């Protein structure tokens, strides 16, 4: 049974709600309102982990998000969350946490042998120790270092929880709900401003929660509760608890709300965390300040903590972390902490102040405890827990005092990180001994301790002023503010950066095991800028980002290089201010919801026909349809192709981009965007067109139909639909605004089905009956029409991608599924077969039609055998650039058909092409295979490729070399059109 360090009464915990939790397999008790750290301390568990490099025992050091030591893995299994700060984990019933970076336990860690290697592990040891031999770098040193260093590990399992995002807009964002933040929110909220108050903690109040001061005649914590109650009554104020603002961006702030982190499992439909994007016109940064530790020999033992944290544990959580507490300070706050701890019932063994002079009023705060002025702690003892300190007094005399806890107080560092995210930097203010931020994001004020307004009264007044100013900045009248009366307190502090004493390590950065000697060594080796110091020693890196170590580190560096702190400067803080889970940035968009999915109207009908689907951009398209008994894709695809070539097949082609072009100048417009002429296209006709980019390369192809005098409809490839729409908008709005052209996407409006094969006309006739004459005479190749059947508008196009007699029929998308089913029904007597994108692809390759593999952004029209389409009678986008020397070079790889000399050989996309007698090498390469298919018509594999001087080489035997897939075989170069070269079927 462990000793209870819980005070008999007091604190803001709810003693009527006891909670059980487990740490490293051992069960403990705590109360609602505890953090994991406070509950562990209440159970006399100080030692919670081992340090990063030396595996030294480490205890809880702070009471907030600045914690460098107490990193634990929260939960287990897929919900395990490594590197979570015990000081910010809200206790819940059944909580399970475990220590990290130690084996088998924090009490007994085998890797503590690292301490023996201490002299080797100093600053830059990676670069010095693991130099030779070079062959060891990757195979031995790196794995060994990675295995022994590092913090917690990920579970490697899928996260079972969800994350979401939200947006918020306000006149004023207040960051931090301590005294200044609450005062600011009250002032602006009362004036009618839309206020968002974001607080990282689960209770509002900040330092008020750890303080026994009086405000307006009530305790500080009660005042915070009253302020929260008033804010709650204001409809224009929103309070976001458990929400850390992590970054300032242009006019926006990022924040992470830990919605369910304090629960065992999130309730149904509730996310674990919510990422907020907050658009704020004004901002008050009231993030407070962090107490600075002191750097002295042996300053990392479990039991050495920030003095303010001791005060918080006592007043907020009703816990005294130790039996006999010493205070080592260079500020009046250390004395104040001693006072508060005594008041809470703790025993103060000694107060050591490094300052020679301290006012009598401040000294009174220590009560009867022995006091040493002008003295410092020069050594400590104890391994798993502090057992004593050595004090060196002003005369140089040393004495040892037995204590189990030491509170250190080196003054305060304002938390200005967020203010510097847009490029500003803190500058050293000698008078306040702190980095303050003058260059802030637009609309941001800094208030309270973050602006070095140290006392409670100052913070409250300063916050209220900032809130009122923000309200007036957004055009709201100034309200007479109630003045807030707070008890007075002393705030003197003299920073002192390094205390000498024993030969023990004096740690600057507890999280990264960086010592004062490391800083000195870095300076000695020439790493004299703070940014270099950070990277060379790792000072200020990792999860705490040096919140307790940066200022001490750079101050010691300044001393080493004999510069002032102002001259030395600080490192630049960048977002995120606190760690944010990647899952929160993804929000709902994980797994198959990474991007929206687009479904065609025939999706369900296709699924019912056993379609296998493939992603085409965001669309899901039927790739092939499994008939009973078929279990490999090639069998299905071959059957589908044969059906189309012999009878009739249908295929949903709704995914192709469809763009309506309206107005009297569409013909002119199309002439300028396509390489071929469209202005001459009569109403009722369709034409194939190719458009180029400005640089002369092919951008996209498709057909455009002239429906009525002022109404055309263009089709694009599925993948390029958005890009072409954008291109047309650009051309119209920027290049030729004088044209009477209006464009709008109608991709979603029309469901379109290709009906292909020698019996396609019979099928359409069966479907449409007398409603429309589809005979060759009435509706020849490349005709189009728009008509109604009943009240349903239909569009019919006689176009063919397969090379067969074919049509595309379109209806408004709401009728799409019914059309697909009606075609299947009407085609039953004809043996209609649904076909997917694979069969479509096989047939277009057989027909020598180019598609995505050939329109690859590196081909010009001539490469694709489309050079003759390039009109010489008009100008069009890409014309001039397409005439560049390199683009008209006759040696350019040009479209050819390919078939294996050994007909049983399978062709594969991407195989490189060479003349038969050359050795494969980059400079002898003559092109590559772009598309391949098994041709049911020819009963062997065929391909399309881009081959240097291709059209001249029909009949030549060349070599395909495919080293990746061990292919090396001969190909015959042929015409790219493998079926119906005369095009008789199209016109049948």
């Amino acid at each position, binding site marked *: 049974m462990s000793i209870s360090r819980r005070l008999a009464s007091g604190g803001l915990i709810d003693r009527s709600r006891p909670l059980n939790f487990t740490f490293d397999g051992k069960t403990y008790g705590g109360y609602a309102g505890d953090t994991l750290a406070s509950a562990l301390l209440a159970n006399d568990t100080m030692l919670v982990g081992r340090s990063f490099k030396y595996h030294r025992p480490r205890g809880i050091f702070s009471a907030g998000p600045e914690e460098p030591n107490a990193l634990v893995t929260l939960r287990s299994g897929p919900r395990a969350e490594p590197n979570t700060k015990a000081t910010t984990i809200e206790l819940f019933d059944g909580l399970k946490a475990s220590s990290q970076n130690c084996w088998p336990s924090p009490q007994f860690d085998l890797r503590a042998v690292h301490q023996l290697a201490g002299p080797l592990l100093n600053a830059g040891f990676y670069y010095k120790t693991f130099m030779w031999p070079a062959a060891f770098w990757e195979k031995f040193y790196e794995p060994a270092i990675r295995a022994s260093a590092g913090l917690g590990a990920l579970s490697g399992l899928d996260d079972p929880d969800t994350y*979401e*995002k*939200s*947006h*918020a*807009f306000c006149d004023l964002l207040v960051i931090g709900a301590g005294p200044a933040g609450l005062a600011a929110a009250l002032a602006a909220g009362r004036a009618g401003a*839309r206020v968002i108050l974001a607080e990282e903690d689960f209770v509002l109040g900040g330092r008020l929660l750890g303080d026994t001061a009086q405000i307006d005649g009530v305790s500080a914590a009660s005042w915070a509760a009253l302020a929260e109650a008033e804010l709650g009554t204001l409809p224009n104020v929103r309070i976001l608890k458990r929400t850390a603002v992590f970054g300032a961006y242009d006019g926006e702030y990022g924040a992470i709300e830990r919605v369910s982190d304090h629960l065992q499992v999130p309730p*149904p*439909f*509730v996310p674990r965390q919510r990422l907020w*994007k907050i*658009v704020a016109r004004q901002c008050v940064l009231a993030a407070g300040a962090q107490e600075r530790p002191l750097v002295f020999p042996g300053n990392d033992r479990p039991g050495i903590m920030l003095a303010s944290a001791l005060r918080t544990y006592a007043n907020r959580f009703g816990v005294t972390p130790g039996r006999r507490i010493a205070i080592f300070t260079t500020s009046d706050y250390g004395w104040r902490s001693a006072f508060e701890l005594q008041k809470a019932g703790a025993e103060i063994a000694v107060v050591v102040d490094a300052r020679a002079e301290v006012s009598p009023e401040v000294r009174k705060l220590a009560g009867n405890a022995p006091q040493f002025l002008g003295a410092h702690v020069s050594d400590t003892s104890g391994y798993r827990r502090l057992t004593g300190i050595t004090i060196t007094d002003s005369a140089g005399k040393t004495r040892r005092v037995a204590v189990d806890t030491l509170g250190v107080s080196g003054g305060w560092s304002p938390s200005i990180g967020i203010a510097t995210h847009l490029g500003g930097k803190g500058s050293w203010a000698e008078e306040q001994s702190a980095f303050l931020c003058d260059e802030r994001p637009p609309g941001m004020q800094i208030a309270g301790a973050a602006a070095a307004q140290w006392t409670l009264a100052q913070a409250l007044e300063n916050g209220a002023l900032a809130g009122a100013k923000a309200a007036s900045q957004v055009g709201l009248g100034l309200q007479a503010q109630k003045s807030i009366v707070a008890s007075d307190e002393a705030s003197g502090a003299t920073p002192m950066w390094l205390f000498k004493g024993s030969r023990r390590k004096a740690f600057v950065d507890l999280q990264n095991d960086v010592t004062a000697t490391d800083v000195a060594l870095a300076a000695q080796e020439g790493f004299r800028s703070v940014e270099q110091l950070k990277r060379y020693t790792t000072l200020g890196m990792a999860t705490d980002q040096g919140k307790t170590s940066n200022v001490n580190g750079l101050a010691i560096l300044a001393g080493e290089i004999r510069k002032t702190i102002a001259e030395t400067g600080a490192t630049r803080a960048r977002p995120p201010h606190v760690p944010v889970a990647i899952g929160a940035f993804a929000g*709902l*968009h994980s797994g198959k*919801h990474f*991007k*929206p*999915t*687009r*479904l*065609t*109207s025939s999706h369900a009908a296709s699924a019912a026909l056993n379609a296998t689907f493939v992603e085409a951009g*965001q669309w899901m398209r039927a790739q092939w349809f499994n008939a009973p008994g078929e279990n490999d894709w090639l069998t299905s695809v071959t059957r589908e192709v044969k059906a189309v070539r012999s009878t009739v097949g249908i295929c949903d082609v709704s995914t192709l981009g469809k763009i*309506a072009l*309206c*107005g*009297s*100048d569409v013909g002119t417009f199309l002439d300028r965007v396509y390489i071929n002429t469209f202005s001459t296209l009569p109403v009722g006709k369709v034409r194939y067109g190719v458009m180029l980019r400005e640089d002369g390369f092919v951008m996209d192809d498709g057909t455009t139909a002239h429906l009525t005098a*002022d*109404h055309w409809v263009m089709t694009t490839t599925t993948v390029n639909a958005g890009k072409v729409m954008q291109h047309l908008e650009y051309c119209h709005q920027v290049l030729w605004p*004088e*044209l*009477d*052209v*209006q464009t*709008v996407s*109608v*991709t*979603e*409006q*029309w*469901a379109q089905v290709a009906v292909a094969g020698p019996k396609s006309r019979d099928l359409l006739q069966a*479907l*449409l*009956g007398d*409603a429309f004459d589809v005979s060759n005479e009435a509706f020849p190749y490349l005709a189009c029409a728009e008509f109604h*059947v*009943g*009240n349903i*508008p239909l569009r019919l196009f006689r176009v063919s991608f397969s090379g067969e007699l074919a049509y595309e029929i379109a*209806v*408004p*998308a*709401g*009728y*799409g*599924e*019914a*059309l697909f089913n*009606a075609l299947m029904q009407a085609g039953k007597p004809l043996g209609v077969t649904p076909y997917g994108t694979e069969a479509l692809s096989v047939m277009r390759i057989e027909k020598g039609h180019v598609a995505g593999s050939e329109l690859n952004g590196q081909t010009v029209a001539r490469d694709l055998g489309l050079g003759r389409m390039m009109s010489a009678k008009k100008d069009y986008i890409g014309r001039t650039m397409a005439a560049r020397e390199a683009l008209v070079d006759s040696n350019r790889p040009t479209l050819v058909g390919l078939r294996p000399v050994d007909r049983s050989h399978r062709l594969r996309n991407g195989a490189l092409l060479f003349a038969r007698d050359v050795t494969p090498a980059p400079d002898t390469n003559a092109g590559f295979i772009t598309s391949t298919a098994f041709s049911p018509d020819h009963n062997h594999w065929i391909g399309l490729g881009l081959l240097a001087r291709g059209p001249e080489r029909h009949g030549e035997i060349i070599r395909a070399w495919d080293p990746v897939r061990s292919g090396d075989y001969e190909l015959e170069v042929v015409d790219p059109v493998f079926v119906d070269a005369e095009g008789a079927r199209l016109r049948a």
Partner: protein
Amino acid sequence: MLDLAYISAFSGLRSIGDGRGVIARERRGIAIATVMARKGQGTALAAAVKEHFDINLPLGPHGSGSVSTSFLGTGPGRWLVTHDAGTPRFVERLAQQLEGLASVVDQSDGVGLLRLTGPALLDVLAKGVAVDLNTTAFPAGSVAVTQIAHMGVTLWKVDETPTFHIAIARSMAGSFLHWLEASAAVTGLVADG
């Protein structure tokens, strides 16, 4: 005679979660058209709209409407028109009425329409919409062409209850419902009708 059954975009709309935070109803049978002013015909178009519909054509991101027909400004010289009185071939008629003044393109099947209301609606919409929908910034009648969860949407505030109408590309209806369900279930999503 070809007789095809009609399937609306949001046939998959369903209730989820406890409570009535958001009440969603698919607006079915609405005629929808994109109306785009012809070159130099803006003034004449406004006059024609006034004459035929007694509507002041909005010249910004606003909607204005009569009992059954609304014009929503979605871009310079561009409106989304909705008509819910069931007039047969409304879009064709509209094209004739505005002949020479505007190009009219049928979108009745291109977008699915939802009517959303309920006490949690603004909080739910905030999970997708990066536009301030508060009354002070987005009063009733306002229109936004924006996106939700990477899907383009057109939304307009019908009244301050608040009630929103929202238009989403038909093919993305399933993905949109995933977003809506995931965002609204916590306060309850009720599929109404």
